[in-house]
């Protein structure tokens, strides 16, 4: 992250319970003792969680356990909610991005986000994709290339190439969501955060999003919140189980789903919850 201010360099923490000590992949992002308060409410409690490069990490847990809150810390979207305090460190390549000196708009270009409800802008498909890149200056030629490239990567190109200049709002929900993903990857981020990206979609569209996530991890590091256990098991390499703001267990997905170390995780996975 060249352009971000670099106040300090931190040693990655290796003894936190959520770090997998046998993991050899490089860490793209990790949180150290992350705490989030909404006013009095303690929504995230001392969470240490790494995201490994070019992997998919699924965040699971019951409603209200803090998955979205955690995700929104990683690109500082919680800054916009008045009364929110985020404490602890979030390291990206050795830089603590949870620091007031960080240029947040630059940061968000490198850590993209896709929301639960597709939120295309009331503009054309083309304009949706070039909206943000254009803010940073991009030639007409580059724009066209970027649009095609982003749409191809999200599998939308063949579906919409004849109507690039028509309203994005006319697309189906699934197409809209893939457009939002295309819009995010057009910024060429390093990390993409997805907050229940398929929960508002039909099964076919959901399948397409899942496939897409699998492909995108070759290029990006991905964190995805999901309520769907099968989905987490199908598409993620790592799974983190949250409960009441705490990170209960974090492991390789194949391990966690077959052999959870904690009783709470097992109860949740088997539906013997609550």
């Amino acid at each position, binding site marked *: 992250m060249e352009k971000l201010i670099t106040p300090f360099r931190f040693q990655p923490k290796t003894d936190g319970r959520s770090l997998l000590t046998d993991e050899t992949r490089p860490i793209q992002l990790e949180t150290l003792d992350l705490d989030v308060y909404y006013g009095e409410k303690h929504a995230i409690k001392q969470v240490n969680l790494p995201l490994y490069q070019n992997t998919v990490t699924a965040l699971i847990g019951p409603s209200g356990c803090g998955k979205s809150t955690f995700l929104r810390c990683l690109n500082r*979207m919680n800054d916009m909610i008045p009364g929110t305090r985020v404490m602890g460190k979030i390291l990206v390549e050795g830089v603590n991005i949870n620091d007031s000196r960080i240029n947040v708009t630059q940061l968000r270009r490198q850590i993209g986000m896709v929301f639960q409800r597709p*939120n295309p*802008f009331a503009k054309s498909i083309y304009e949706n994709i070039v909206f943000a890149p254009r803010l940073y200056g991009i030639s007409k030629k580059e724009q066209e290339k970027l649009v095609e490239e982003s749409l191809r990567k999200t599998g939308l190109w063949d579906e919409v190439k004849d109507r690039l200049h028509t309203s994005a709002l006319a697309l189906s929900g699934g197409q809209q969501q893939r457009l939002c993903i295309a819009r995010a990857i057009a910024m060429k981020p390093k990390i993409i955060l997805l907050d229940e990206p398929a929960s508002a979609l039909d099964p076919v569209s959901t399948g397409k999003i899942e496939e897409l996530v699998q492909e995108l991890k070759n290029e990006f590091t991905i964190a995805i919140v999901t309520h769907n256990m099968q989905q987490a098991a199908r598409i993620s390499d790592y799974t983190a189980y949250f409960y009441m703001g705490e990170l209960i267990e974090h492991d390789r997905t194949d391990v966690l789903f077959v052999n959870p170390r904690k009783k709470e995780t097992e109860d949740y996975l088997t539906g013997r919850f609550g």
Partner: protein
Amino acid sequence: MTLVSAWVLIITLFSLLYFIASKGIAPFLHGEVTLADFFSGNWGPSLSAEQGGPQYGALDFILGSLMVALGSAVISGPLGIGAALFMTEIAPKAGRKILQPAVEILVGIPSVVYGFIGLTLIVPALRSIFGEVGFGLLAGIIVLSVMILPTIISISADAIHSVPQGIREGSYALGATRWQTISGLVIRVAQPGLLTAVVLGIARAFGEALAVQMVIGNTADLPFHLLKPMSTLTSVITLNMGNTVQGSTYNNVLWSMALILLLMTLILILAIRFIARRREV
């Protein structure tokens, strides 16, 4: 019960329309005044026949109404939309605590008070700054701008409020700044509502009589000089309606002017409907 009140409303509306229209058309039907006369700039209702009168040309007033209404919209449109953006997007807390009550108070002040303030503060101020009489187009525009500002602010604020939060989040998540989000997306999405706000402001300015009449000078002149006295349809009607004989040509011509006002307002309301319908698409 609601059906009854609906019928009462409809019947009232149509009898009002019928009444004004029948009175307003009368001078033309009887051939006392031709349409060409009416839409000319020759106003001289008390001129004798030897002097070529009486003349009933209302052009100066029609244009006068248009000029003060548009002039105040030119000032209050940007100002009101800016204030609405400030209180919704930039400082919602200060907006709720200070601007919102201020707007509500401004709405509640009767128009005679605005006129009075215009008469005692703005007209003398203009007189001392520019050395003219002070009464005139500019004074009218200033007073009306203040009067329609709260209308424009509150309708604009509603329009901006109704822009889905997801749009803003999506924009911020792409690394856009607040200003880029407002100028590139929020204003665009809210645009039909903002237009409606301005059109309603124009309609309000167009129909206002008392405050305008107190500051514009009330002479039958074309309204193309900011500092020269002039008249509007409403000011001419309110000033003369009581002094003319029922059923006289003069009196009926005032009704014709009222009809013009009504038609213009109808056109503005249709414009708002049209804008609102386009928004739904």
